[in-house]
């Protein structure tokens, strides 16, 4: 199972890097979103995949039989943060497109250079 997860994470990173290296602002934003998904899956895998252990304590389940809750808490936090950042990126990307009339990252270079 860990091996499959590693392959999935690797593929997500590959897709994210590919998207982030393109010139289109929207693709870069999607790339960062996919990169953070890969990172979240990495936390899940690195925390140890629980198998069939129950995720939350229930009656009749001993502490030692429970899955490690910390990676879940970390992922939830990280997902919320990446949700917020991606939404803000989309807003700013859209506003930039409106103001600068371009969605090519090459055209967003700094205007004035030093003399």
């Amino acid at each position, binding site marked *: 199972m860990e091996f499959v997860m590693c392959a999935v994470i690797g593929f997500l990173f590959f897709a994210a890097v590919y998207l982030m290296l393109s010139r289109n602002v929207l693709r870069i934003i999607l790339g960062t979103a996919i990169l953070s998904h890969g990172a979240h899956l990495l936390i899940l895998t690195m925390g140890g995949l629980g198998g069939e252990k129950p995720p939350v304590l229930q009656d009749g389940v001993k502490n030692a039989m429970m899955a490690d809750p910390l990676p879940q808490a970390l992922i939830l936090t990280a997902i919320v943060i990446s949700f917020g950042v991606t939404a803000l990126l989309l807003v700013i990307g859209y506003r930039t497109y409106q103001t*600068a009339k371009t969605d090519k990252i090459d055209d967003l270079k700094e205007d004035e250079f030093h003399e």
Partner: protein
Amino acid sequence: MNSAVFPIIVPLFFAILLMFAPTQRVYQKIVATIGILSTLSMSVFVLQKVHTDGAQVVTFGSWQAPFGITMVADSISTLFVTAASLVTLFIIWYSFTAIDREREGNYYYAVVLLMLVGVNGAFTTGDLFNLFVFFEVFLMASYLLSVLGGTKQQLKESLKYMFINVFASALFVIGVAMLYAVVGTLNMADISVRVTQLEQPAIVTAISVVLFIVFAFKAALFPFFFWLPSAYSAPPIPIMALFGALLTKVGVYSILRTYTLLFPLDTTFTHTLLMILGIATMVVGCIGALASWNVVKIIIYNIFIAVGLLIYSISLFNEESFAGMLYYTVHDMLIKAALFLLVGLLVYVTGTQQLRQMGGILTRYPTFAWTFFIAILCIAGIPPFSGFIGKMLIVKGGFASGHIAGSIWVLFSSLIVLWSMIRIFIYAFWSKEGRFETVPKPTYVKMLVPTVTLVALCVAYGIFSSVVWPYVQDGAKLLMDPTLYSQFVLKGVK
């Protein structure tokens, strides 16, 4: 017990209050002032408490130390928290006149306080993942601040700034995940105990480099500095001052914490890396500061020189250099904010950022000119002023651990700082009459008063350095002995 969290929740509370009536300008100013003043008094209170009673540790939700999220106010973090709150106080005061009405009506003060929440939280936290969360809090606030107003320049720059930081944050999560897999905990004190018991220290060194890249992005260290000059020069001056004074220092603080506490294993490799990159950052800053004719850019490149110096002093790893580093960080927060405010005034009275178009300010605005001159002496480290003591300690520490060439380069770089700043003084203040805007006198005075006060504070920080010295010494002792930190955090835990 709970005093460690006060400098974080007080600004948060006032930021929430500010969100209720964004367009009431008087309400905004009054609440922002009360908020920042109470934050500052809280942090001074915690600083005093830490000095008398020892470090304040609180673990959220009454969980035991390695399981819950720990907040640790020790002498290093409270010193930085106090300096950050102090700098924010002056920037808010300056913003009353320098920020336009449109930005004021769009949650400007609320976002500034939220950024302080993130910065203070990042200084105080004792948990690696929580550090990531507070990084995101102040980054989110900094995205909003850099885009506030929505000019074309700002939108372009903040988009790129966000891309860089989102990428760095993803790396942070990856580093944290790998560290969790290796040591099985994220509490910094617990990690510092467990890494020493590992059988394979090499993997921790590899992870330390991943985390180092993240912090180097934030601190704008040598190979990762490219985003900073353009990103920082887009927003208006008070926001620039806030970024320049605080954000890079959070990166430096994180490197300081992680490299003294979490990764002290393979110091010959990691600290050589820190030293080389620190010196390279100083070189970049010197070249940029001398090559630029834009006054704002000159100050921005001076940030690099300070960051490089601080990283160099971390790499020396002895008590003297750590004391110098702590002292110099606080000095640098104050003086960088003061310089940005001064440059803001300079741009305001001349209406241009180009040094070649300025001139003759000394005759028209003598008070401003001499304040600027004193600030130059402060940042260059001329003896009675505050930069001197920090640099002297760092250089002494460098000589003590046998890094002669690096320490001589530090001395040489302060000459270049002096040169780059004196260049502004000669061209803008001395030479024949250049461009001037017609400036209403009351506005000029309102912007001058906070600036002069901040410069006076910098001077006082140098002259009365014996007041802060005990706190700095406590901090340096703590950095030299990481077991102290884990002792007071994990108190009562086997």
